């Protein structure tokens, strides 16, 4: 684990007193979560943890500009965020390389054809997620773990310095949960990307993450490294869930 707190680097994400929720009517609103204060730095893997319905997905959607917070501000470059939804539909006979070519949308010609530079980028992204040689495989025939890595590769091909993933390990077996979280850690550390992902898998998250954002029952915790709010996690997941 990368233990030194980066003091010289400026944070890539700052959440400043965010209030999440949605408006029901003109003067009505339903608040999901208040007083969210947090930071994340380049090169950090951030796990967003919290029980169902606390607003994890809403927070992630705010990060990438898919939604807006009710109040508060967040500072990050929203054009520099790649978002990986929790579920990406699959299509038969759609090759991996063709899927990744769609991530180059703004750099391809009117038909979506890409140049050799982009092809090289796609090859590199596949190599980084451990799927070298999968270029021409049918995405519908990949395993869930492999397909999850392809969607991650799409985020890499997009080239953003912040990657936001909504429950990337939800449908995977325990081995693949470990593979994906380790992979995210390596990508964050080696390429100095800020990677934020929501998860319910505490074990892999605690093992690999540099920072934990906990949407606990009594507030938002932003803790780095060894200060992981274990006691809070424990309370949150074993006590508040059942009582």
């Amino acid at each position, binding site marked *: 684990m990368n233990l030194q707190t980066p003091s010289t680097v400026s944070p890539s994400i700052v959440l400043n007193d965010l209030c999440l929720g949605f408006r029901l009517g003109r003067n009505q609103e339903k608040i999901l979560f208040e007083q969210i204060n947090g930071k994340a730095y380049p090169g950090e893997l951030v796990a967003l943890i919290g029980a169902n319905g606390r607003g994890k997905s809403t927070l992630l959607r705010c990060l990438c500009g*898919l939604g807006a917070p009710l109040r508060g501000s967040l500072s990050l470059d929203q054009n520099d965020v*790649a978002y990986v939804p929790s579920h*990406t*539909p699959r299509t038969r006979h759609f090759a991996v390389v063709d899927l990744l070519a769609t991530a180059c*949308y703004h750099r391809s010609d009117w038909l979506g054809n890409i140049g050799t530079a982009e092809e090289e980028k796609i090859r590199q992204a596949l190599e980084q997620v*451990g799927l070298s040689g999968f270029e021409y495989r049918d995405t519908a025939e990949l395993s869930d773990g492999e397909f999850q890595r392809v969607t991650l590769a799409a985020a890499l091909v997009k080239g953003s310095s912040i990657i936001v993933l909504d429950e990337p390990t939800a449908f995977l077996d325990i081995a693949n949960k470990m593979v994906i979280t380790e992979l995210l850690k390596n990508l964050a550390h080696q390429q100095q990307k800020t990677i934020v992902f929501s998860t319910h898998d505490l074990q892999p998250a605690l093992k690999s993450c540099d920072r934990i954002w906990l949407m606990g029952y009594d507030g938002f915790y932003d803790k780095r490294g060894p200060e992981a709010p274990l006691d809070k996690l424990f309370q949150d997941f074993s006590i508040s869930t059942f009582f």
Partner: protein
Amino acid sequence: MTHSNTNFKLPRNQNERPGRRRHAQGLLYGFLGLAIVGLFVLDLYSGTASISLKEVLVTLVGKGSGNALFENILFQFRLPRALTALLAGAALSLCGLQMQTLFRNPLADPYILGISSGSGLGVGVFLMGLSAWGLHSLPSWLTGATTILPAWAGAFLFTALILWASSRLKDNLSLLIFGVMLGSVGSAVISLLQYVSQAEALKNYVLWSMGSFSGTDLSQVGILAGLTLVGIVLSFSNTKNLNVLHLGEQYAISLGLSPKKMRRRILLAVAILAGSTTAFCGPIGFVGIAVPHIARILFRDADHRRLLPATLLTGCCVMLLADCIAQLPGSSGIIPINTVCALLGIPVILMIILKQPE
């Protein structure tokens, strides 16, 4: 655990498979191109008057025997008919493909949003409504007009409604429901018109709804060709968007795209293609839904950069073939094009689908 960040280089010969695939696809494009030429000539050859194949060919290149009757039949009837079939096949299959991708639904066809119902309503009001309201003799300025204008007006009206709804509805499913409902409203009004109309008008309407490529002359084919060409270019400009839609709307948004805009562009292309085809030929079923599936099975490729041209060519082939069969070679009758499509086409499709390895 097999994940790796090792920098091992992919051996070049791993790319052999895509190379083979592209090669096979190239051959298929070539084959389809040749088939279109062959079927086009065959379509010119088939018809009630017997003209030899040789005569057809020499008349086409302008070195005919000077038989005015043959030239008349070829250029006034068969050439417009064959060209209309070609254009309709291309247009409807492209529409079907775009609708299937947009709604992520293999059952979607060009008419799923009610465009044919709109055309039918226009024609129904024109053919049956006038007689129902006691206008047995049409005004003189209308007698020259065919069903093309009312069909086009109806399709245009329904398309406008769909586009209006599309800008207000949030997701594709709501739009699908809106379109299907709109189509049902159109059908209900048509039923009402049928109920109250005279036998002659009713028969004319039923004949229109069976579809025909014979109602067009060369100048009308020119208009249809122009509209279809515009629609085809618009469809091809949707290639990138359609590929993105394979991955869902959230993915599209994450790329900084607006699903509403993408949807509007697809609807516009489909409306121009399906609307004009229906106006000139009536509602032609089956092709729009089946051809994209045939193209996918033939090309084993869901990327629209290859699938769009594949669908276009396959659509031309299928429609020309259906028109040849509709002429009942060797007999003096013709059967409605929709009947041919349904009777001969659907068993073929079912066979292909059942034989798919899974």
